[in-house]
């Protein structure tokens, strides 16, 4: 129940939210940098913890609904409180996280314990005053968006208009207004009339960061569709269709399964999208549909192990991918608690490991290497010794600084760029 299932920085990077399999959300806040210790930059400490979703039972279909948090998305901050959306398989909730550091004292009708006073005993009136108290962080559910999804929700995305957001399940995408919880618009529906003809499902969806009418969704066949909501109410016809022709030399029985896209992310600039399938990360230019502009091999050494990975279901693992603040570096996870970073400009890449065995606090992470065959050097790991139960599916990158959060099963690692 403690397995981390999603990680997300807010828009300033001050807060970091994590959701876990037990339905809880834990929010970390960055310490204010102090002038006394300039070399010790802001660390993240627990700010708030709350139970977002509970396990439910659908009596109509005799199904359990998992409380696992699939995604968390922050809303941009508009006042002193923080707002985030969290979702499990079926229900999206809007949470308000606010601080309270003052409390009123001096009520007329109640005494300090809260007990009611006898009105006949009150002889004078006073105005309650606000006195400081210990800081308390409260999380309250403000909206619950339920009963709109038959299938499992895999993505939520806040629109750039800050008034609407979308939620996507395997076959449908719904558009919500934050203020209205009993209605949503269905904007994409790929369910065939005859379920026997189903060959493709939606795997991820995201709004464009600047154009509130544009969104993309990825499919299990390795394609991405860009839709414009101005075109029609139901966006079943895409405006753009991104698909790379298959490489015949890499064809295998598992080609389709490994082409299924597990995550799609717009760049901060809005010009590119990044997709993650089982073995690669691809960067696409929105203006070119027929192939990606960049392809990065995450762990190509697994290509010869696909049958074993299929047998133990690892081939279905859904890895996420993230951009850094300037869209120059992309990051994604792998097995054995490895995660990979690719610099798009220098074309260099690095493999790092998130584990306490190999890194002490404040130590510089050593790059790791997987050796494919032949002689294994001293610090390399062979493919056969990789631990496939230690997978890094969820990572996040601070919106402006070089701080990353990496979720390794039930541990959260936060790394910062070393500044001399």
């Amino acid at each position: 129940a403690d397995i981390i299932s999603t990680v997300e920085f807010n828009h300033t990077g001050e807060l970091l939210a994590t959701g876990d399999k037990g339905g809880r959300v834990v929010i970390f806040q960055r310490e204010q940098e102090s002038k006394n210790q300039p070399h010790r930059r802001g660390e993240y400490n627990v700010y708030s913890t709350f139970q977002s979703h509970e396990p439910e039972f659908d009596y109509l279909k005799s199904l359990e609904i998992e409380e696992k948090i699939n995604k968390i998305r922050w809303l941009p901050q508009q006042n002193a409180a923080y707002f985030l959306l969290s979702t499990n398989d079926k229900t999206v909730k809007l949470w308000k996280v606010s601080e309270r550091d003052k409390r009123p004292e001096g009520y007329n009708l109640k005494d300090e314990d809260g007990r009611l006073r006898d009105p006949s005993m009150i002889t004078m009136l006073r105005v309650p005053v606000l006195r400081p108290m210990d800081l308390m962080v409260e999380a309250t559910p403000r909206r619950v968006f339920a009963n709109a999804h038959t299938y499992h929700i895999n993505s939520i995305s806040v629109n750039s208009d800050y008034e609407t957001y979308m939620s996507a399940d395997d076959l449908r995408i719904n558009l919500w207004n934050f203020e209205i919880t009993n209605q949503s618009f269905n904007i994409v529906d790929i369910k065939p009339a005859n379920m026997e003809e189903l060959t493709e499902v939606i795997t991820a969806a995201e709004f464009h960061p600047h154009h509130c009418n544009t969104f993309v969704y990825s499919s299990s066949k390795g394609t991405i569709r860009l839709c414009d909501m101005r075109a029609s109410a139901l966006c079943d016809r895409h405006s753009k269709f991104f698909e790379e022709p298959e490489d015949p030399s890499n064809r295998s029985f598992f080609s389709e399964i490994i082409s299924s896209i597990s995550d799609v992310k717009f760049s901060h600039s809005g010009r590119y999208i990044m997709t993650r399938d089982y073995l690669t990360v691809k960067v696409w230019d929105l203006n070119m549909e027929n192939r990606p502009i960049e392809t990065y091999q995450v762990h190509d050494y697994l290509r010869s192990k696909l049958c074993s990975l299929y047998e133990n279901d690892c081939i279905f693992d859904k890895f996420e991918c993230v951009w850094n603040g300037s869209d120059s570096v992309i990051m994604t996870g792998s097995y054995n608690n490895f995660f990979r970073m690719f610099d798009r400009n220098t074309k260099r890449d690095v493999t790092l490991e998130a584990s306490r065995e190999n890194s002490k606090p404040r130590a510089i992470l050593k790059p790791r290497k997987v050796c494919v065959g032949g002689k294994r050097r001293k610090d390399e790991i062979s493919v056969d010794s990789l631990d496939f139960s230690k997978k890094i599916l969820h990572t996040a990158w601070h919106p402006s600084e070089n701080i990353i959060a990496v979720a390794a099963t039930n541990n959260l690692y936060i790394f910062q760029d070393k500044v001399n």
Partner: protein
Amino acid sequence: MGAGPAAGGRGARSSPSPWAGRGVACGGEELRWPGPGGGGSRLLLEGVRVPAPLREPARPAGEGRAACEGAGGPLARSSSRFMLGRGLKRKLSDYEENMAGLSSAFDSSRNLPYPLKRQLVLNMCLTKLQTYKMLVEPNLHRSVLIANTVRQIQEEMRQESSQQPINVCNGIAPNPPSYPGIDSSGISLHLPSGSSQQESNCCNSWSAEGPIENSLLMVSDDDMSSAISSILKDLDFMEDISPPTSLVPAGDDEPPKSPENTCLKLEDDRQDLKGAECVFGSFEISNSTSYLKDLAIDDIFEDIDTSMYDSDFCSPPLMAPRPPSAATEETLKTFPSCNSSSTNNIPICRTDLSELDHIMEILVGS
């Protein structure tokens, strides 16, 4: 919907937060990576402790949803969490472990004949689909991917078989399908060895055999499609709010469950043509596809041993503990007829192994 509990504020930093107890490494860990201003990466060759292989994961009592998602997936499914190298001995005490061994063999051996590889993959796919069918809520994404893979293999087999009658008399193997990189000499070695024996024995009666073979293939293809369809239909029923009657129309061709079992056995039979001949000996050759549609499948295949591909091979019989939905009820109706022949079965594992060995022998032609 009351206010959520307030916990873990700044003032409460001294009390242990729930994360710290579970080993959160917060802050303080720094890294250096290649970047325009950075120091560049150095491959440090100092000794790094390679994580020791962990102990064998405990096998959970029941499958449940955990098998589908999350980190519990590979642990719950099988012991092949690590890539098993060659020469690693394991106790073949479980069908799953056997499949793990086969999949490692698939990955590591280049000399495995293509049809055998394909059959392995097909078996794995069908096994997974059957397992998913037993779950109350199968994962739609995975089911669709696996069903597509099965269809793909089926299509390829169909194309191959449609080429075979032409080529076989010459003893030339059919053209390798569109999977370059496969050792074509392997194919030419093994395919005719299995089928040419039959052909050479009865080349006079080839005209009689051809339709049998074709009818076998057609039957299994249709049954396979209906198996996939039935899985997807069941998924639809499970998930969507549509009334059940519209999803399982009365005019459906075959009852969902039994053709699946029988088609799995048919798949097996296709490799073992001798056995298949006996099975279909009583058929009228004219048009077996429509013949099947007219009959109840259960009656025909009652005496076939479908023990290997019964879906309850690794867990208690299909009586789900949960209140059955209409789809499950239908399942329960059709299954008893198929299982009647296999009620005498002792631990599936051992018969499975001997059958697998048998199949492998035939395919390899040893």
